[in-house]
């Protein structure tokens, strides 16, 4: 469970403060394209499992979350405040605003009581790196085997794959493009540094 006073895995990191101490001053060109990186710290995360073929299960989840679960493979639904990501035919990740995961878990558990379903708080398992900017796609393409061309991969798409050999859940949030990378906490520092290095040629800036 995310405690507001807890340090997130990437607390204190910015594109200009590299873990290896290398000179990481922001290259020129920021603001004219390039890449923007930020950690969405302490986002709440719940793993929801249940039978997608059971209309009662889907209705109960809709009642608790306020939107339908994504049933198509590798898609997302919901809004920025609460998002559901498809992880498997009977498995979803529900991402909530920091601190909202407990209330979301309770409302899901109440709605699903008596059903063959489970809700597990996994908020601290991963953190979220938000990568945006005109060249965000080019940076990901350096280390991800997924075809990220807009023809194939667009807003609302999700993929579980590898980026620089680290397992991530990749979610394209909007067309700008903006990507959320859900990465296991122990890999977060490594992936952050890899992304900064990969993005340097395009110019990389700290996001909000």
């Amino acid at each position: 469970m995310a405690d507001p006073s807890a340090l997130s895995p990437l607390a204190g990191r910015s594109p200009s403060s590299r873990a290896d101490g290398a000179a990481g001053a922001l290259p020129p060109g920021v603001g004219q394209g390039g890449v923007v990186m930020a950690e969405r710290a302490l986002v709440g995360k719940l793993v929801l499992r249940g039978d997608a073929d059971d209309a009662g299960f889907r209705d109960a989840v809709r009642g608790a979350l306020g939107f339908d679960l994504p049933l198509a493979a590798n898609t997302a639904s919901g809004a920025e405040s609460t998002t559901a990501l498809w992880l498997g035919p009977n498995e979803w990740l529900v991402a909530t605003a920091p601190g909202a995961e407990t209330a979301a878990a309770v409302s899901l558990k109440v709605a699903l009581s008596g059903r063959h379903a489970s809700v597990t708080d996994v908020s601290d398992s991963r953190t979220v790196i938000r990568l945006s900017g005109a060249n965000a796609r080019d940076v990901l393409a350096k280390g991800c085997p997924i075809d990220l061309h807009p023809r194939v991969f667009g807003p609302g798409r999700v993929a579980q794959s590898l980026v620089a050999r680290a397992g991530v859940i990749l979610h394209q949030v909007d067309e700008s493009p903006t990507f959320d990378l859900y990465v296991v906490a122990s890999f977060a520092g490594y992936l952050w540094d890899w992304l900064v290095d990969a993005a340097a040629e395009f110019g990389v800036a700290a996001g909000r």
Partner: protein
Amino acid sequence: MLLIDCPWCGPRDENEFQYGGEAHIARPKDPALLSDAQWADYLFMRGNPKGRHRERWMHRSGCRRWFNVERDTVSHAITAVYRMGEAPPATAKPAATGDATSAEPRSSGDPGQWPAGGAE
């Protein structure tokens, strides 16, 4: 490098997957009735055909689901992908390659069909 068509996620790079060995090896219904040789045959002996081979894969870095693939062990061509519990596609029957040394894939779940000591 293989491009494997996950039944849920679509075509993905081979290094997202984990190999799970030959498919359709049914566990004997009553292991207590088997001799040690028959049990060892079930546990360890596999067809190893030269040609089409039905095998299990798991999308480890993706949706983490197991599924079946039919792959040619010579050309690596993948001729079918189907989910766990589904029957293999009839059109994709493993074929003898015409090579006298290549054994037909064993009909699994029938332990003890090989003579002790192994014919291969």
